[in-house]
């Protein structure tokens, strides 16, 4: 998560430079075509937001009202915080949130560090076997991690990692697409910058840390966020490797509550809101950088 602190003078000026043509586009007059687009877009946005908004509203109802028939759109007995209080005071939800934060952060940090090192080597060092290595890494994208659950679980038994944080974290840190994306980004950074530093006697690692990585902040931010979202929301692997409730991540823990007690609408919706909030805040802060980095690095157009 540390690498998600993106905005620096370098990135913002670059972002601004790329945006210059946009204000002109934005201020175009409202032609009939644009009004139609606006209406369609508004209808679709409402469709996409209804489930979320309704869940958020329901989390402020009493349990009785949330389960009442016919359904009410707004809380008629007033907006209450009962669901949040129950969720946060009793049960393991705060603990699960902590587990999720811890494991997702660890996955993100380890993934970004090892992928950046490998991506840098593949981009800059002309070493024997580098082409073959890159080919193997790209080919491995084809292996769906989910089919490996059985041998991975067996391996975790051998390593005594069942029911541990490491058991959740370590198998999630290999992200071949991220190595490839970072390599492609590093390829675009002019070598002249590094050559000057090399002549001055700077080590390769120092060049990576002080020149290449600072220039790569937008892509590091985007990679970090996608890895973090993936790890925070991952269900199948933590579900398999964790059995003790205190060690469960939020998605797995919530699933056990729901299957054990049935759906308690207001409480579950409060839990859902609490589970989603950190990611929504994260995305709102960084959405512009994410889109910028996707478009400038060619993730979208190989």
């Amino acid at each position, binding site marked *: 998560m540390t690498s998600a602190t993106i905005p620096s003078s370098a990135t913002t000026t670059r972002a601004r430079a790329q945006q210059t043509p946009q204000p002109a586009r934005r201020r175009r007059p409202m032609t009939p075509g644009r009004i139609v687009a606006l209406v369609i877009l508004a209808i679709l946005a409402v469709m996409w937001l209804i489930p979320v908004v309704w869940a958020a509203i329901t989390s402020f109802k009493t349990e009785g009202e949330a389960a009442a028939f016919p*359904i009410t759109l707004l809380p008629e007995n007033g907006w209450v915080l009962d669901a949040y209080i129950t969720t946060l005071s009793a049960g393991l939800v705060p603990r699960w949130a902590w587990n999720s934060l811890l494991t997702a952060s660890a996955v993100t940090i380890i993934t970004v560090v090892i992928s950046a090192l490998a991506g840098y080597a593949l981009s800059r060092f002309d070493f024997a076997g580098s082409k073959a290595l890159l080919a193997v890494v790209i080919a491995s994208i084809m292996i769906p991690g989910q089919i490996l659950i059985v041998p991975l679980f067996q391996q975790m038994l051998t390593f005594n990692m069942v029911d541990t944080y490491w058991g959740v974290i370590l198998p999630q840190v290999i992200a071949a697409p991220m190595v490839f994306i970072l390599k492609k980004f590093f390829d675009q950074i002019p070598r002249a910058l590094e050559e000057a530093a090399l002549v001055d006697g700077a080590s390769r690692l120092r060049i990576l840390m002080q020149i290449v990585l600072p220039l790569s902040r937008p892509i590091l931010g985007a990679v970090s966020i996608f890895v973090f979202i993936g790890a925070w929301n991952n269900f199948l692997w933590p579900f398999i490797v964790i059995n003790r409730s205190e060690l469960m991540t939020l998605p797995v823990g919530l699933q056990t509550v729901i299957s054990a007690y049935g759906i308690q609408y207001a409480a579950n919706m409060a839990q859902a809101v609490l589970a989603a909030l950190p990611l929504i805040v994260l995305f709102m802060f960084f959405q512009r950088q994410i889109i910028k980095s996707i478009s400038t690095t060619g*993730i979208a157009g190989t």
Partner: protein
Amino acid sequence: MSATPVRARGSATPAPSAMREGLRLRRRAENLRGWLYCSPFLFFFVLFLVWPTISGLIMSFTGRTLTGANTGWVGVENYAEAFADPEVWSSLGNTLWFTVLSSIPLVVIALALAVLVNVGLPGQWFWRLSFFLPYLLASTVISLFWTWLYNPQLGLLNTMIGWVGIEPIQWLNDENWAMHGVVIATVWWTIGFNFLLYLAALQAIPDQLYEAASLDGAGTWRKFTSITLPQLAPTTVLVVVLQILASLKIFDQIYQMTGGGPAGATRPILQYVYEAGFTGYRLGYASAISYIFFAIIIVISVVYTVAISRRSVKP
């Protein structure tokens, strides 16, 4: 270590043999450095991807169970059993059917949403957030939302279609509707990722192309089909490939929304792998099913790649 190349380059009077020697040392240092930088990644790559891939394959030829008993070699017995197992075929069929049903809207609607947002209406951040927001939610959360929206009595969806006089639909309890219910929820949930890829690609198309087309008198639709779509072709190739791979791996939301029911109508192959291995304790058999599935994924990918490269060879 990294000072070596600089010094080698700077040395004043290199005798030919010393130069060759220096070059060789430099090469060796470069090789070492390359593998050193890759080693942390490679360590995990081998440990948690290459090795399980191999050990899973080996396991699929054994009678291994979760309790560790009966680990003997059984040859292709597991595979023979899997091919004769109707559950394998039906769950595989469900997975492929889900992939077809979900991939098409997830590509087409994502493109439409991105094009609409890219028109440049005010409130860009709001549109982006609206369509990307569900992607940020965990499968548990979206399954909770949708089981509740689909609830025959309390569900918002049936309430809303009731307003226009449609009879309530048993979205998740009716064999004919359950898969569609899961697909709708999945499209809603995951479209944000493809939407973002398309949006980024659209923003990278140079404005000059459109300006030139306008001067030539091209209309909106003409510009879309002659500029936008061709410019987006590489993105579409990528989006389709990622989408098919993602859809084939369906498990989370189905497991949580329907549990694979009603009557196995939505059960995907990964759920069958999970059940065979972790509730049926037959790791060897579960591995064999995994590898059959893996082989099918490879075939689909190869067919797709060949089809794409064929098409791009044509002028």
